[in-house]
Structures are given as structure tokens and as C-alpha cells.
């Protein structure tokens, strides 16, 4: 959409102000995420740029908040660096503990959500599926129902089963919340799926299992992985259910950030946030690569 040669001055002004406005919106979208990155290297315990930082004085920058992630909660944070220090940090540092929890919970709930979700998406894409719309609406519902309602409901339910404040409880909750994303992405992959490939396979003597593993699986794998990534990030980000269901032992990164923001606000949170932004950049890249691969596999040419 470039400016045509015959554009008048009014159109010119309109064109440039439109671009300017869009530029502002993009800034609005990205700046808040970028701004925390330099702030996380602040040498001072504040949430704003010090004069030294603006002068790019190296002394105004430090890694102390990253070190704090490793040391906060250690039994002896001033001990000399060595194996004992690493063991102490690994076992006692609060942030490391919640990172381990986050990854563990996200990993297990992603597997649950992906297996259930992919099977269901395969069923939903069959042409003979009865009550398709109704079932689809049910499967998407956990994404739509306000989190606070799901979290409160699961709190009562899991308490009755004495599963609140356990990993099992949180994993169930996160699997429920992750399922819609897997169903949506895998269903979207299957929409463009050429069913004659399955028939061709069967025609050449493959049994249904072989057809599934040799033909269907490779084609839907990109969709499955991006669904799994969505489920993973959903669990990794989720905090409302964790607030209701987790005890101290099960706290995750977002839970720790939540209490950090409400109680003792420290730039360590910015350091953690920077790490999380890096993680989302990695995930975004993986997704983009998967999308391209899927397009290539299905013979869609990039425009």
C-alpha cells in the first residue's frame, strides 16, 4: 500500500499521519516489554532509570538482581562460590524453586492437554461427528469462562478430594485450561488436511494404524506442537488457579511475582520478567518456524 503518484496533498497528509498513528500503536505495544530489560540491570533498588544509566555509565548497571534470583532464600548467601554454594542455591533459592515448579507443572499438564486435545480434534474433524458444534463449544469453554470462576470451582472440588495444595491438583487445573488451545490449533491444522491421502494409503495396503503413524501424524505434528506450546505457555503464565490451589511448596514463577508485586517490590522481579520475555521470544521463533514447515509440507507456497 504505497502512496500512488497521483495522490493530492490531502491524501499525502492523511497517509503520513496514518502511518505515524500506527507507529505510535506499535510503540505502545512493544515499549512496555522492552523497557523492563535495561531496568533489570539497574544497580540501584529502584524501578526507574537512574542518571548514571542514562549516561550509560557502566557502574550504574549490574547483574545484582540476576544474582539475587540465584541467592534469595539461600541458607548462606555469602559462602564462597563452589559446589556447596550451588547445591545451597539449587535447593533453597526461592526463585529457582518456583522455576522448577513452573517447568514441571507446565510440562506435565501440557502432555495431558496435548494427548486429550489431539485425540478430540481428530474426532471432531471426522465428517460423521454428531453434535459437533455443541461439543466444540464445551471443549473451548475453559478459555472463555472467567479464570476466577474456574479457579474457585476447582478449589472447592479439589479440596473435597484433598487434592488442593498438591501438584496433582494444579496439573489437573492447568490441563483443563490448556485443552482449548490444543483443540483449536490441531483442528485448524486438520481443516486443510487432504483426506484422500489417507485413502491413498489404505488403498496401497496400509492398515489404519500405519496410515495414522505414517501419514496423519507427520502432517499434524506442527499443529500439535504449536498447540502444545500454547498449552505450555498457558500453564507457565497462569496465576489465578495457582493462587487458589497452590501451597507454599507448589508456588510457581507467576505466583512468586504476584506476591512480590503485592508485598516486597524489588527489581529482582524485573530480572525474572526479562528472563520470561526471552523465553517468549524463543517460543515465538519456534512457532514461526513450525508454521513455515507446516506450509511447506502441505505445499502452500509463501506469498
Amino acid at each position, binding site marked *: *500500500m504505497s502512496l500512488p503518484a497521483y495522490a493530492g496533498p490531502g*491524501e499525502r497528509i492523511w497517509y503520513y499521519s*496514518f*502511518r505515524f*498513528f*500506527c507507529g505510535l*500503536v*506499535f510503540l*505502545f*505495544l*512493544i515499549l*512496555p*516489554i522492552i*523497557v*523492563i530489560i535495561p531496568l533489570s540491570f539497574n544497580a540501584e533498588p529502584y*524501578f*526507574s*532509570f537512574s542518571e548514571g544509566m542514562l549516561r550509560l555509565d557502566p557502574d550504574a548497571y549490574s547483574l545484582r538482581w540476576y544474582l539475587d534470583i540465584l541467592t534469595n532464600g539461600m541458607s548462606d548467601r555469602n559462602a564462597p562460590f563452589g559446589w556447596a554454594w550451588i547445591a545451597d542455591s539449587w535447593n533453597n533459592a526461592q526463585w529457582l524453586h518456583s522455576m522448577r515448579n513452573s517447568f514441571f507443572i507446565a510440562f506435565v499438564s501440557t502432555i495431558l492437554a496435548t494427548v*486429550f486435545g489431539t*485425540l*478430540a480434534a481428530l*474426532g471432531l474433524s*471426522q465428517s*460423521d*461427528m*454428531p453434535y459437533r*458444534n455443541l*461439543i466444540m*463449544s*464445551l*471443549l*473451548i*469453554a*475453559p478459555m472463555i*469462562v*472467567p*479464570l*476466577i470462576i*474456574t479457579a*474457585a470451582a*476447582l478449589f*472447592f472440588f479439589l479440596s473435597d478430594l484433598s487434592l488442593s495444595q498438591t501438584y496433582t491438583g494444579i496439573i489437573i487445573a492447568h*490441563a*483443563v485450561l490448556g485443552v482449548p*488451545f490444543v*483443540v483449536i490449533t490441531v*483442528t485448524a491444522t486438520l481443516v486443510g488436511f487432504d483426506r484422500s491421502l489417507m485413502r491413498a494409503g489404505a488403498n496401497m495396503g496400509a492398515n489404519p494404524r500405519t496410515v495414522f503413524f505414517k501419514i496423519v501424524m507427520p502432517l499434524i505434528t506442527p499443529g500439535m506442537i504449536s498447540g502444545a506450546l500454547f498449552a505450555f505457555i498457558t500453564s*507457565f503464565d497462569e*496465576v489465578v488457579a495457582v493462587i*487458589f490451589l497452590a501451597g507454599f511448596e507448589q508456588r510457581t514463577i*507467576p505466583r512468586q*511475582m504476584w506476591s512480590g*508485586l503485592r508485598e516486597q517490590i524489588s527489581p529482582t*522481579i524485573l530480572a525474572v*520478567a526479562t528472563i*520470561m*520475555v526471552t523465553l*517468549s521470544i524463543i517460543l*515465538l521463533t519456534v512457532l514461526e518456524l513450525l508454521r513455515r514447515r507446516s506450509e511447506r509440507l502441505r505445499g502452500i507456497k*509463501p506469498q
Partner: protein
Amino acid sequence: MTDTSIQPSDLLETDDGVSLKAKLARATRRNKLRALGLVAPLGIFLIIGFLWPIGAMLLRSVHAPDFGEIMYRTAALMEDWDGEGIPDEAIFTAVVADLTQAKEDKTIGRAATRFNFSFPGTRSVFTRTGRKINTLTEGPYTEGLIEINDAWGNHEFWLNFQRLVKPFTTRFYLNSVDYQVGENNEIVRQPEERQIYVRLFIRTLIMSAIITGFCILLGYPVSYLLATLPLRYSNLLMILVLLPFWTSLLVRTTSWITLLQKEGVLNDIVVGLGLVSDENRLQMMFNATGTTIAMVHILLPFMILPLFSVMKTIPPSYMRAARSMGANQFTAFRRVYIPQTLPGVGAGSILVFILSIGFYITPALVGGQSGQLISNIIAYHMQRSLNWGLAAALATILLLGVLFLYWLYNKIVGVDNMKFG
């Protein structure tokens, strides 16, 4: 093939002698079963892990058997009380027996809390009576109880007692729309200072509408730009939309706290530019403004992505055709382009609206008093005041609203068409 003609499948037979029609029907049935079988594991998982818990919680909004169970002897007698004056000695005897047992079971506190929700200020009646209940060794208990606390001689107290021992109730719904049961069992408005929920619902709706409006305002031009730019540029710019979408909600809320707080980056900038003096730093956080800004940022990608996917499908030749027929840029845009994007606007708006009326985290962190939404009060009643019945009633109302919007979304867009990125 018309209805009157004979279907070939009626006549044809497969090699094992079954008519083709029956064979086809059987194959269809088998396919249906297979499809259902594939969906079944997830269906069962969601019914047990999602639908059932939600149903059970919603039931709490009408079902509160706690008090009646603790005071079960009194509850049995209470049914026959005519509601005049105060009850007779038999009921007072039952109260003493119930409270004595409740003291042993350590359930007096729970009964007191339940009672206090529907009749504020009466918590101590139960706890104090409980402490002295062992001194009442013999009757008449009526005088004994009234002596410990004169609330036991209060007609209104007893009316409330009678309502509370019933397991099913509508009082939570009445409370959640700022009504209560008055002295003579009639429905009256809550006193002025306790009318908070209707206002909160309205505020939630208005703020969600404002946030949705801002998202359209900011999202529409950007989506248009993304949809019309050559792919190599738009792919790059798309990252600026997708990165926030993929970044943790808490990280983004943290960023906004960093930016908006009094000693924060934005205030530093305006003070540095000399627009505002150092003493008059702007209060941008802990109010509705902060919540709105942060939530627009968080929800904007949910507007841009559906808009973009609709705009992408609109052929640019339509606009050129309109212009070649004499419409100016503005008319062509208004009469040809915008109508085609309305499904995208609808999808994005409903999605943003649904998500924002259920928002909890961001309002809790940057909202302060005036930026709280209905979810926050539900969380408050769940965790702090422990008035679970009221929390459930508020949640039910919220859920009904959301389900209505979801139904609307389904009508307009169809859940099958939901996509990410």
C-alpha cells in the same frame, strides 16, 4: 437424484448379500462411534474436571446447609414456629443443646460467621454464648440465654435464625443485586452504604466497553496496515503484535507498574520535560486509568489478530473498483471496506469484552480502589470474607453474562473459526 426415484443403494447388494444401504448405514454408525470415542477421553476429563466443579460451586449460591446442620435440633423445631415474638422454651432448650455440641465440635465459629453474613454484627452473640454455655446447666433456658446476650430476646434475630436454618436460600442472589430480606420477610434494598455490587457490575461493564472501544480504535488502523503492507514488512511488524501476545500477563502488568507508578518512567519523563513539577507527579496507577491502560495493552492483540485475518481476505480490487466508479478515498473506505471488516470487528470485540469482564490479575495489581472489577470482589469473598455463597451468586451472574456473549460469538463467528496467530 430426486425423492421419487429409486435409490441405487436400495437395490444394490454387497458381495456378502447385505443391501448396500444397510451396509452404508452401518459404516456411518461405526464412523460416528469412532469419532465420539476419540472425543470421549477429553469430554470425560472436562466433565469431571471442569463442568462438575463449576456446577457444584454454582449450587453454593442457593444451597447453604452449614448453619442448619450445626444447629440441627433447633432447625427441626424451627419449622413450626409461627414467627411471632420469640420462640418458646423448647426451642431455647434445643439451642443450648446445639451450642453445647457445637462447642465440643469447634463449629461455633463457623455458625457465627454464617449468621453474621446475613445479619451483620451478630458474630459475638454466638461466640460469647458459646463461651458461657456450660454455665447454663438447668432451665428455664429462655431467660438464661437472654441474660448471656439480649440478642436472644430480639424478634428480628429469631426471624433471621428461622431463615438461616433452611438449606436452600435466595438471599445470596438478593445480596448480589443489593437487596436483602427485611424485618417482615419482605424484600428491601440494602442500606445505602452496602449497595456495592450493582455499581460494581455496571462499572465492570462500562470499563470493559471502554477497553473494547480503545482496542477497536487502536487495533483497526494497525490491522489495516498489516493487511495491506507487502508480506515481508507485515511479517516483521506482526512480531510487535505477537510478542506481547506471548509475553506473560504478569510480566506485562509488572511493566505497566514500572511505567505508571509515581516514581516510574513515565512520570520521570514528564517531570524531566518540565510539563509537571516534581511535587505534582501524576497519579496514573491504583485507579481506573491504570487498569484501562494496562488492560488495553494486554487485550489489544486479541483485537488485532481476528481483524487482521478478516482484512487479509478482502481483495484490494474492491476498493479500486469503488474509486474508479467515482468514490473518493473516504467514501470507498466507508462504504466498501468497512462493511466487509465488520465480522472481524465483531469477533475481536466480543473476545476482548468477554476477556475483560472476567479480568482479575491486572485490576488487583494496578486498580487500587476505583479500578476493581467484579472478579476482584468474587476473589475477596472467596479468600478473605469467606462468604462463599455470595461469591458463588456473583460468579453465577458473571458466568451467565459471559455465556450469553459466548453464544453470540458462536452465532457470529463460530467456535470452529477461532485461530491464533
